[in-house]
């Protein structure tokens, strides 16, 4: 209630000011001039700013500018990316001619950090920043996270599905920091917890990745896994209003997909061959007659004897369209940025569509010379249509309907337009539960739409020089609604002209609605004090008080028996006993005190100290607060005269950085987990539900924050006048007190959920390197970037019992091993002869089976023969690397991005390469026909069908998931301004771009970047796009 009142008060104060508009003008003087390069070419787009104030403009196409400068101003600053900034002292001459020099280091480059910005040269932490430019926005990307792939060392981006709307991208900074949620914190314009994948790439100005303790410390409580700071555009420093239109269209095809065999007689033959291993031919489920009949009649009667190419039926060429229009501008008093965009994605799978609409409005206004206000509004809306959670499949264990492509047999007709019937099983003895995915993807869809609004406003005031107070208030709101209203249909047997027994959707098909809504508020009060004393000493102090509050609710309802298949609201179905409903809500509060001190002396010695003190409602009183301090030191040694004289020739800049500190994490704990509550456990009495409650909680009151201590040592060097820059970082992150459900006796686990305890320590150590070369030769400019990172994850302690082969959440855990390490039998290949079988330790094998090694030599094969791999992880690579290059000549630009990873191995065992498939209803692939070992195919790459122990996790199936991928290649052309001016345009770029063009890997499965489950079949996409960017 109080919270609300404060918000309303703020609104009442702010609104009149916002409406006041752009009227007030002070006593000003006009300056104008031209900005050129050394060779005299005029430079458009140079920022001209009055030093120390938010007043400025940019040069026009001819490099000309004019700016109204307030009376007291003394200096103008000219800056442009890639050029050395210049400061011109203002005199009486109001016409200026400025020549700028190229400098690739970007000394004045400013980087967004938590609660402010910092000069890049003064950074002491490990911060990587990405400027979002044409090269990135021109790629046919459906979300921001995939755009970060390969750009920043230490940030690993893996795409897990190509499904439209799924955005299954996992982001990880410097390895997996905890076995709980290890995702980085995403902060958009100061608001944490915004969904990065709903941000419009075209609105983003820059992205900062905060990797170490000191840079992330101001977000300390939840920054243990790093922070991604996204800053959206504003019209700051512009005078001329500019309008930009971008538009692109991409076609998507799979990078790789399974080759299902559209040949039913062969599939049945495989079934027979499989069955022949263990049963008499007479007992085989499928008869020879069925094969012969289908072979013969399949050629003339595709209705009754179909050989369906399901992949063909179920997929299409995908497409991605991106259209965006934005306008920005500003003057001394105010600036704005406004943008609307639409992203329309049609997935590879039929009826898998996703549309996202974005609108943004950013506005700042100077109320007084020492007082600013601003608002930001971001609204987005998405529409998402899909059949199953993973697209083609559904990994839900409670879904026993067999919605899995492995059950999509070729001998089934998807749909007969003449009768309107969907095909079912027809062959003699085929399993009636075999599955027609077409009907699932047409008649049984989920429709989900979601709206989000992220709004924020601030008011700052500098009552005395150097001291700024600022209040921020932000409100995010979301509403998500999903419904299902399946269309009744049954399987049809076209041979017998009768319905089969499988009812895909019953005649009493109902409707289900699911609503999730929630909001988050954040109130920050901030004081900043900045003072330069004795000329060379600069001190900045920051104090922030912050409150965050989350509230989410969920509600669902369902009814059976819709009046008509075309309806999908609850009222359109019968009320009565077949109704279902549910709902709940959760809330969370976080209270934080944040402080930071920056001190620099002579621009050489840098010092920073931070702390954050957080209280979370997820923990019980006494354990709610965590304190996370950090310190950092920096030394720009090239500023020392004794260094300068020695290295001046080749070393243009050098900085040594070191930081140490701690960060917190509470994401493993759910909101109500620590509350002492009873759970429903009802019973039936007299035909009605009798209320029952059980106690299944054993709360550990001492549970508190996970803490991650990070040591970071970095070295930044610039060579050859900044043409070559390198950044090297070493880090050591120790996460201690990971909170996990504690080990509990099974005398209790049948009744109680094991209470969480702060259990284990996990250490991540790694190095990162970033190497950039930029230069120009005449009109030819080019750049090259190489970045790589290596990370090793080791579980250092676990103060609970860990047995051999112990797992937690199905991941292998053991001390001094990576989390989910590889634990595997060693194989000695496929037995070719009985002699091979007898030479090996007895293990029930026959020729054609994979033989396992008796590692401990005890004469039997059991779990004791498994080997653990200490440096390999199953879920993610240890090493990520990327290489990007770009060249520009006149109006042409070409860029290329390679990205790769190594250090990950996993078993290639899934539902689609199963050599021991069921005796019925299996959708064989061509590999099943070609690869299994048999007497005629002794070189077969797979073991024999239906052998023994061939699906066991052995090194036979252990694949190296290293890969190198041509992630993006892009060619653009900027039309000459001279031509454009004729039609009134400012700029026009046309381009073509291709994603995931080629992948080099030894992995035999779908894609080495993915971490899919055994049934996953949705490939990653390869796309080709064309686009246009227009400015006027």
């Amino acid at each position, binding site marked *: 209630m109080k919270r609300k009142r*404060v918000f309303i008060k703020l609104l009442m104060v702010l609104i009149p000011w916002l409406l006041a508009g752009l009227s007030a003008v002070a006593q000003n003087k006009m300056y104008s001039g031209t900005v050129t390069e050394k060779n005299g070419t005029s430079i458009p787009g140079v920022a001209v700013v009055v030093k120390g104030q938010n007043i400025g403009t940019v040069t026009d196409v001819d490099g000309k500018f004019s700016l109204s400068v307030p009376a007291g101003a003394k200096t103008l600053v000219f800056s442009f990316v890639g050029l050395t900034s210049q400061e011109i002292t203002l005199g009486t001459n109001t016409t200026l001619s400025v020549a700028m020099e190229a400098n690739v280091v970007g000394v004045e480059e400013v980087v967004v950090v938590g609660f402010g910005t910092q000069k890049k040269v003064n950074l002491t932490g490990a911060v990587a920043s990405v400027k979002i430019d044409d090269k990135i926005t021109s790629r046919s990307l459906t979300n921001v996270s995939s755009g970060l792939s390969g750009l920043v060392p230490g940030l690993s981006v893996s795409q897990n599905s190509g499904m439209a709307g799924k955005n299954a991208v996992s982001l990880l900074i410097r390895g997996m920091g905890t076995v709980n949620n290890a995702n980085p914190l995403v902060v958009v314009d100061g608001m944490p917890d915004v969904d990065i994948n709903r941000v419009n790439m075209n609105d983003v100005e820059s992205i900062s990745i905060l990797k170490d303790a000191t840079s992330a410390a101001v977000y300390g409580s939840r920054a243990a896994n790093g922070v991604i700071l996204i800053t959206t555009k504003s019209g700051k420093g512009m005078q001329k209003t500019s309008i930009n239109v971008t538009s692109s269209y991409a076609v998507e095809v799979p990078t790789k997909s399974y080759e299902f065999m559209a040949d039913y007689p062969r599939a049945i033959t495989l079934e027979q061959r499989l069955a022949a291993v263990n049963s008499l031919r007479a007992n085989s489920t499928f008869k020879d007659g069925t094969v012969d009949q289908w072979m013969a009649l399949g050629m003339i009667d595709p209705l009754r004897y179909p050989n369906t190419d399901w992949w063909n039926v179920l997929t299409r060429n995908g497409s991605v369209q991106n259209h965006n229009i934005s306008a920005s501008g500003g003057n001394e008093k105010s600036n704005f940025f406004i943008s609307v965009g639409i992203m329309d994605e049609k997935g590879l799978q039929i009826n898998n569509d996703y549309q996202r609409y974005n609108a943004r409005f950013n506005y700042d206004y100077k109320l007084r010379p020492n007082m600013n206000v601003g608002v930001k509004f971001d609204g987005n809306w998405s529409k998402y249509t899909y059949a199953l959670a993973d697209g083609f499949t559904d990994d839900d264990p409670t879904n026993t309907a067999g919605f899995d492509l492995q059950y999509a047999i070729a001998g089934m007709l998807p749909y007969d337009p003449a009768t309107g019937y969907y095909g079912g099983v027809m062959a003699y003895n085929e399993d009636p539960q075999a599955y027609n995915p077409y009907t699932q993807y047409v008649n049984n869809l989920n429709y989900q739409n979601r709206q989000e609004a992220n709004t924020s406003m601030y008011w700052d005031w500098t009552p005395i020089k150097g001291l700024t107070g600022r209040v921020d208030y932000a409100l995010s709101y979301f509403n998500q609604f999903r419904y299902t209203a399946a269309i009744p249909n049954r399987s049809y047997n076209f041979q017998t002209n009768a319905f089969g027994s499988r009812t895909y959707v*019953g005649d009493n098909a109902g409707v289900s609605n699911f609503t999730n809504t929630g909001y988050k508020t954040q109130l920050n009060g901030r004081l900043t004090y900045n003072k330069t004393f004795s000329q060379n000493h600069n001190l900045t102090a920051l104090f922030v008080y912050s409150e965050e509050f989350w509230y989410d609710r969920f509600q669902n309802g369902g009814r059976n028996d819709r009046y008509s298949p075309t309806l999908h609201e609850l009222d359109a179905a019968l009320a009565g006993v077949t109704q279902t409903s549910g709902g709940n809500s959760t809330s969370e509060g976080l209270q934080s005190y944040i402080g930071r001190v920056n001190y620099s002396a002579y621009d050489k010695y840098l010092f920073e100290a931070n702390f954050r003190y957080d209280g979370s409602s997820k923990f019980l009183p006494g354990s709610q607060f965590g304190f996370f301090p950090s310190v950092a030191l920096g030394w720009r040694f090239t500023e020392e005269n004794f260094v300068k004289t020695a290295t001046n020739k080749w070393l243009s800049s050098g900085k040594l950085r070191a930081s140490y500190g701690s960060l917190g994490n509470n994401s493993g704990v759910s909101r109500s987990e620590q509350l002492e509550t009873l759970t429903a456990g009802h019973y039936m009495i007299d035909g009605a539900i009798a209320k029952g409650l059980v106690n299944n909680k054993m709360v550990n009151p001492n549970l508190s924050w996970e803490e991650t201590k990070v040591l970071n040592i970095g070295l930044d060097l610039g060579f050859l006048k900044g043409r070559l820059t390198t950044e090297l970082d070493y880090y050591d992150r120790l996460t201690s007190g990971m909170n996990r459900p504690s080990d509990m006796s099974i005398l209790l686990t049948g009744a109680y959920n094991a209470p969480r305890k702060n259990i284990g320590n996990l250490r991540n150590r790694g190095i990162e390197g970033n190497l950039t070369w930029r230069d120009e030769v005449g009109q030819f400019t080019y750049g090259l970037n190489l970045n790589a990172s290596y990370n090793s994850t080791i579980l250092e302690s676990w103060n609970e019992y860990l047995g051999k082969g112990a797992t937690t959440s199905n991941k292998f855990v053991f001390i001094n091993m990576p989390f989910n390490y590889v634990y595997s039998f060693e194989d000695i290949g496929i037995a070719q002869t009985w002699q091979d079988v007898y030479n090996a330790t007895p293990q029930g094998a026959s020729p054609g089976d994979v033989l396992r090694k008796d590692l401990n030599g005890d004469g039997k094969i059991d779990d004791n023969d498994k080997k653990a791999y200490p440096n390999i992880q199953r879920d993610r690579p240890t090493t990520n690397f990327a290489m990007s290059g770009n060249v520009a000549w006149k109006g042409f630009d070409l860029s290329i991005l390679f990205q790769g990873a190594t250090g990950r191995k996993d078993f290639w065992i899934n539902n689609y390469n199963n050599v021991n498939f069921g005796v019925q209803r299996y959708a064989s692939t061509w590999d099943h026909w070609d690869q299994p070992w048999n007497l005629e195919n002794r070189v077969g790459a797979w073991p024999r069908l239906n052998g023994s122990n061939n699906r066991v996790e052995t090194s036979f199936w252990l694949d190296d998931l290293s890969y190198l991928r041509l992630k993006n290649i892009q060619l653009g052309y900027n039309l000459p301004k001279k031509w454009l001016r004729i039609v009134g345009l400012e700029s026009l770029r046309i381009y073509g771009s291709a994603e995931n063009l080629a992948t080099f890997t030894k992995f035999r499965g779908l894609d080495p970047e993915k971490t899919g489950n055994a049934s996953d079949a949705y490939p990653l996409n390869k796309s080709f796009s064309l686009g246009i960017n227009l400015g006027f």
Partner: protein
Amino acid sequence: MKKLNSNRLVFSALAVLTLIISSCTKDLLDRTPTGEMSATEFWKTEGDATVALMGAYSAVRPLFDRDYYFDGQGEYVRARGTSTTKDNLRLGDAYNGGNYNPSGYGSSFDKMYRYLYGGVSRTNYVIENVKKMLPDAKTPASVANLEAIIGEARLLRGMVYFRLISMWGDVPYFSKVIYDNAEVADLARIPIAQVKDSIMADFTYAFDKLPVKALQNGRASKPAALAFRGKLQLFWACWNKNGWPELDTFTPNAAEGDAAYVAAAADFKAVIQNYGLTLFRNGDPGSWGTMGNAETLPNYFYLFMPIANGDPEMIMAFTHGGTGTSQGEELMRDFSGRTHEGSQCWVFPYYEIADRYQSTVTGDFATKMVPTLPTATGARTKANSTLNPESYANRDYRMKSSIMWDYEMSIGLTSLKSTGFTPFIYKTWNQAVTINGVNYTSYNTDASVYGYVFRKFLRNYAGLGRSEGDYSYPVMRLADVYLMYAEATNAITGPQADAIDLLNKIRRRGNLPALKPEKTADKTTFFAAIEQERIVELLGEGQRSFDLRRWRAIERVWNPPYGAGVWRIDTHGANRDRYFQNSSELAYQQCYIFRIPPGERDRNPNLTQNKPWL
């Protein structure tokens, strides 16, 4: 002057910040649960005791209400799998992962062990907290109510420990609410005799405090406590008389066994005589109907339909709810095929059960049937052919009620609607069939590989999904008490008139004549008659494998170690499965006693293992 002004501004800025800080924090870090009952608000009223008791029922019910899977460990029912949902206790997680074959199952019940102890915790929670309420109870009615609630919880706890000892022998025992893992982390196993005494105490307390008739269907009553006490003593008697060599800490004592038989018989007798309990529909057989028709079915069929919910024969049953209650049973899903709401037919009869059904004419076993291939001449008409419906005529009415053979009908069900009758024809799944000029679509399942499916537990009316059954699953039936009484008395003194009479009452339900004198001539023949009735009467109710173990009859049924084992065949004569072929003694021993969960032994060094599992 200027400086002063600035200071004032700074001061006011700070003041604003402080104001915000102090005004918003109040309950920011103190969130209250919105969807769940706060524990501190509970245990305030007498009604809370009932609510807690219902919670205990909801936790104990799923430890018993899928016992039919256990019949897969006997020789007449195949359980090829289960419909259980992993990690969902209500949907059978206790049974999940269990091996329900005749052999090799002893190591697969870690989950059952875990959830049984879950039941112990749930009941302890009620017992301990309600006890605390007793001193404050105002009226005698209040005291009686609270004591009855404790009695119900103690009965449930007794049932749970009874199951634990009958599977694992010596087990850890605790009877209070546990607040920390450390309290149980190093518990050792308690000798079975001692655990048995504690269970006896629970049952006796329950017997003393429970009402004569359950307050509501699904809750416990005096006769239930008595019947379970009798059953416990019967098992105790068996272990002492027949021995339990796999439990090497246990020394059988024949005298104690005899005493237990006597005590058991006394309890059973009390159940039979003192409470006016009768068999369902007075034990009348009802009508057989006609061959290949299911319009009319014998009474025994209806005993396993919700119509029998709350019938006096159901001494103790666990209730279930239909659509929308999230408390349905999945009997149909387990016992029938795709034709019935997409059911999965996890459980079906072995062919060999058919010959167990006796002739209503002779009252004895009929001529053995001849498995016949449908392609054989006269397969459907030859005398005694398994495919000739007439071979099934004039048999025990419980046959028609329990299983279906070729051309037997049941009601097909789809989307909660009837699709009309569907004939079962082995290996002719989901085909168009014309019978007497009427078109049908045949029963669909490819799960049954012996030629029969169950009719028992299969609903013949529409309206409920395959997971929405509302049948009250019996864990103690009067018929079982009759048979246990007969067994107990026979063990001490041989066939008794009242026991024979009770058997005949049960046989009457199958429309069988009374037992011939030669069947009751001595202990051995009468025991065989009792076993025969247990097989037929309790088919698919999870009793058989417990019977085989306590009688030490596994070798008798499946042949001795290192022998040929036994084949199970189908109605077409094909060999389908062979069990215990060339099995070692150890394989048998591992059936007689279950494995203490090894993961728990890793944690707790005091926890010993049963001998066959070392």
